[in-house]
């Protein structure tokens, strides 16, 4: 996240090797912004995404616990850099900043 413009970078939505089941997210219905922020050792900010808009771009969200879900459909860069970057950019544009690190 750009600390000046608060623009969310596509880098935040690139799938890492540890994201085995998809991009890890927390449902807003069960997790507060503080909860999300406090469970991460390194947190630049908390953003929100709407499931309906994710489905508009042919992604999906699958909940695998009360406080956890995965965005499904984003490939690893090693699998398909072109689509991974494209989707990361779309997710960045869809995301809405809820709280920045220093708020």
């Amino acid at each position: 996240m750009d600390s000046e413009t608060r623009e969310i970078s596509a880098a935040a939505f690139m799938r890492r090797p540890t994201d085995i089941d998809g991009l890890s997210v927390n449902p807003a219905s069960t997790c507060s912004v503080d909860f999300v922020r406090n469970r991460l050792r390194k947190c630049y900010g908390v953003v929100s995404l709407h499931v309906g808009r994710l489905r508009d771009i042919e992604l999906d969200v699958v909940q695998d616990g009360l406080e956890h879900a995965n965005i499904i459909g984003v490939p690893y860069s090693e699998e398909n850099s072109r689509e991974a970057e494209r989707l990361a950019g779309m997710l960045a544009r869809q995301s809405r900043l809820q709280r920045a690190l220093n708020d």
Partner: protein
Amino acid sequence: MSNTIFQPRSTTPPTPAANKRRRIVISGGTPQYDTDFIYQGDYNVIPDAANPYYQGLNFTWNDANSSAIYAVENITSLDLALTTGGSAVSFENNFFARNKFFQWADRGETSFNVGENPISNVLPAAADAPELNIISTLVAGIAKLLNEDDYDEEFIKPTNYTISRALELIFATASTFSSIPTQGKLSTDGMGGIRMEWKYRDKEIRAVISATAQGRSYIYYEQNDTYDIDTALSGTHLSYWLSWLIT
């Protein structure tokens, strides 16, 4: 490949406007030549058949004060044509050579054409937008990344290879662009790599440098529904895409 591909289609020099000030930037295997001159008199492009070491071209011109010859080596796929017509100079076809390219930076006007693969390599006029020094902003970004104290075995600090590669790209690009009207943003990928991102109007490019030489590095570019990756991440290609970005 034979030098014959470098034969100019016309040896007729262009007719420049009187005292037209041009700035030429020639990038190649030889060190950068960057000079301002008043374009007057002859301009020639000749294959350098006499000097096999260069396997390239010599550019010669006469300016107001002196004659000069510059050589650019190892150009392998440039199909060059000079045409007359006002102050126009046209480069046609394969403007890119392998890891090399020429740029005419004709500030404030677009008096040349590039053939079937437009590059639009005219730098914006100085008044178009505030320009940001490409070296200082990006090098400062790298320094900031390195000074982060949150790296561990799960969120890996950029590797020496990545840093070296990023600096190499930045300085190679800066030999073409001293400044651009948008600020590059740097971030780590958490796996030892670095990402550099630029946005300008409806365009975006991302240079992704992997943690190792064996990793996947590339340039991603996007404008509306057009997007793809260029897997040849080099200073030349990054310069090309930055040029695309700002035009």
